[in-house]
């Protein structure tokens, strides 16, 4: 069974952390992953940086720009991760935009992920219909789980379609925004989370966007299986030069 599915079966709320690979320094990738696991993080999204990250706010944009300047490429990332399964057991997801994968070759990319032990992918600009028609078979051939986003504006009908195509979890974007733009949850989010709950989807949901601390983590996981923190963590490693990861994780899980 895929590590993501295994993890989702655990009887607890999951904390997933996103960070940009190759940032702040090119070779920080592996040690950040190891530190996150050591401190009790359940799942990691490894950001493959892109020159034009449309869905991201300034924090992740800047970290991507810096990572590319540091020399990060698809090939470099795969090399950094080649022995990752010797030390790390939690699910690992690569999150990135579609063009670098397209240039690497979608099948070659999936094959490499399987070899390394990557469990899933999140590709914000690969729409579910294109995935379903052109790439789903390839992803499944290599045992990869593709994770789709839904937003407060996504219709029930489309959510059901996304649920039918998914085989891991659904990434529930908390509000209409780019990453790192908004913080905190109000009544609007509560209504949205309840709407999704009432759909009784086959895939559990993990909330992302707008989660930065213990209180937003708790609020998000009240309705969902888990929550993803991205920009807040990237800010932390910027300020701490990729150190003191224990302090960050403890502050969320306290």
């Amino acid at each position, binding site marked *: 069974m895929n590590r993501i599915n295994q993890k989702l079966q655990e009887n607890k709320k999951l904390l997933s952390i996103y960070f940009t690979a190759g940032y702040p320094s090119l070779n920080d990738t592996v040690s950040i992953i190891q530190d996150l696991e050591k401190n009790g993080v359940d799942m990691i999204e490894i950001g493959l940086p*892109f*020159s*034009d*990250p*449309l*869905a*991201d*706010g*300034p924090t992740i*944009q*800047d970290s991507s*720009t810096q990572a*590319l300047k540091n020399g990060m*490429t*698809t*090939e470099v990332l795969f090399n950094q991760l080649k022995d990752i399964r010797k030390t790390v057991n939690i699910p690992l997801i690569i999150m990135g*935009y*579609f*063009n*670098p*994968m*397209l*240039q*690497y070759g979608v099948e070659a990319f999936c094959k490499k992920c399987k070899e390394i032990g990557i469990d899933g992918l999140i590709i*914000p*600009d*690969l*729409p*579910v219909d*294109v995935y379903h028609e052109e790439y789903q078979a390839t992803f499944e051939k290599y045992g990869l789980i593709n994770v*789709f*986003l*839904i*937003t407060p*504006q*996504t*219709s029930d009908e*489309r959510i059901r379609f996304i649920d039918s195509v998914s085989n891991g979890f659904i990434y529930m*974007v908390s509000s*209409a*925004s*780019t990453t790192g*733009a908004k913080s905190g949850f109000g009544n609007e989010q509560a209504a949205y989370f309840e709407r999704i709950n009432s759909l009784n989807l086959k895939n559990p949901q993990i909330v992302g966007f707008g989660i930065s601390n213990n209180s937003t983590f708790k609020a998000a996981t009240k309705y969902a299986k888990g929550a993803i923190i991205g920009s807040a963590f990237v800010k932390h490693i910027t300020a701490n030069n990729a150190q003191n990861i224990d302090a960050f994780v403890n502050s969320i899980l306290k």
Partner: protein
Amino acid sequence: MEKTKTMQQNLSNSAKTDMQLKICGMKYQDNIKQVAALKPDYLGFIFYEKSPRHFDGVMPQLPEGIKKTGVFVNENLNTVIETVNKFKLQAVQLHGEESAFYCNMLNTSKQLNEPVEVIKVFSVKDGFNFEVLKQYENVCDYFLFDTKGKLPGGNGYTFDWSLLNNYPSTKPYFLSGGIGLDQVDDIKKFKESKAAKYCYALDVNSKFEIAPGLKNIAILKEFQNKLSDKTMQENYNVDDKGYYGNFGGAYIPEMLYPNVEELRQNYLKVMAEPEFKKEFDKLLKDYVGRPSPLYFAKRLSEKYNTKIYLKREDLNHTGAHKINNTIGQILMAQRLGKKRIIAETGAGQHGVATATVCALMGLECIVYMGEIDIARQAPNVARMKMLGATVIPAKSGSRTLKDATNEAIRDWINNPVDTHYIIGSAIGPHPYPDMVTRFQSVISEEIKWQLKEHEGRENPDYVVACIGGGSNAAGTYYHFLHEPNVNIIAVEAAGLGVNSGESAATSVLGKEGIIHGCKTLLMQTNDGQITEPYSISAGLDYPGVGPMHAHLAKTGRAEFMSITDDEAMKSGLELCELEGIIPAIESSHALAIFKQKQFKPNDVVVMSLSGRGDKDLNNYIEYFKI
């Protein structure tokens, strides 16, 4: 070493689609680069000292996908192998009396660093004994049939291709010997014949030369275009799923899906409403000042000895074609109940056109503009502000048009309900490229009836436009796309030169990829990171090209030409002097083609003069030290 055999696959491709092209007899470094830019499938280098096209120079770096082919005549096998290794050749063409044994030795040699395709040549004159092929069947990858002449190749005349009706083999072959521009019709006929079933490639050489070994790029381009002329069968409009051939689609984050989907479901319906059309047409007439004149440029025509008409989009309100689209989209936004308008702009022309229509309709307007562009286009920034728009600097990435577009998209993600994004070019996720094209198609609609008044016919011989993202070009071509007698020319900005590293010639430098929500040709690194283009013209300074144009390039329906900064600036000044019109630098790129391409005296060439040069005065002043 296991040899990769791709023949069968190639064969099935060639039977269904087009034949491959080999251009042979390459000699001069710069010329090789120019020919390589045409992306032939094979480039031939003759390693035979007695040939006037003998290659003894330095091999330049060639784009991927072009197979370097060494041509040898009765050469020592070891020399062939050394040459293959030295120049990293992917194919060897044996033009002498090499035996089957020799071919086999080469084919299976362990001294080759990489496997090579072996092409064995046979010369044909009045007849041919196909029996000789048998012994070569299993030792080479392709046959090549050339005209028998005094020299081994390069004799410059064709043989009777109908002899190949008796071709007994299933091995794919190259057709060679005297093929030139005059043979295009014969080739098309040949393609339909039984003989062509296994014809894999065309091999051309001496008929495309200025001097032995020096190829004529313009004629080669024309040959490629004419051969791939599928005007009648091919659809150049968008299909149901939002694609032009392989290009287009909507590669957008889920956050944008509801907005884009709402537009997709409504745009054609809204555009077809009589009330919408009436309002659109009325504004184009009374507010924009349409129809824009189709002006016969007499002195320019005399200078270049052809008939040049300028479609005067520069005379529109706000000084360019951009307003045709913003009028259409603001009416669309109103119909969809949107209260807030966002736009991206490079030089500021589209920003001004958007700010203008927002003022006209009393809607809030936010324009994203790269921080660097804000600094170099101060007058347009002031215009937008006077028109009531808020100009927000894009501070990410390279701080130019590409980043302004990213910021506008991010704004839309953050404001999904009340906001409409007016994209200024024929790019973006479907339905934008098609919607923008339809709003701009008024340009070619007018050309048709205006040309009828001037020339007594609706269709010119050529329509020409400059291309950044490609909105004025899309509008200029639209009603001619399926007219086989109208040649389409697209002019890209070469910046400091196509191979200088400072260029925006996307059709040459771009690879298929995804930018701003659509699959198209774009300039990017091997790793898929989008790179920064360069052109003196801010309006052409874009790393991608609209998906319709990518399709026109790929199918050969349009001929793409690249013009450098210097060529454009000179042609801009020339128009001032000859016709009393100061063109935008974008449009000056289109004007510069007359120095590259010779038209016939009776050809009618209609060129879109997409904008006026007022906004570029500082550039002109600086460049010419006026």
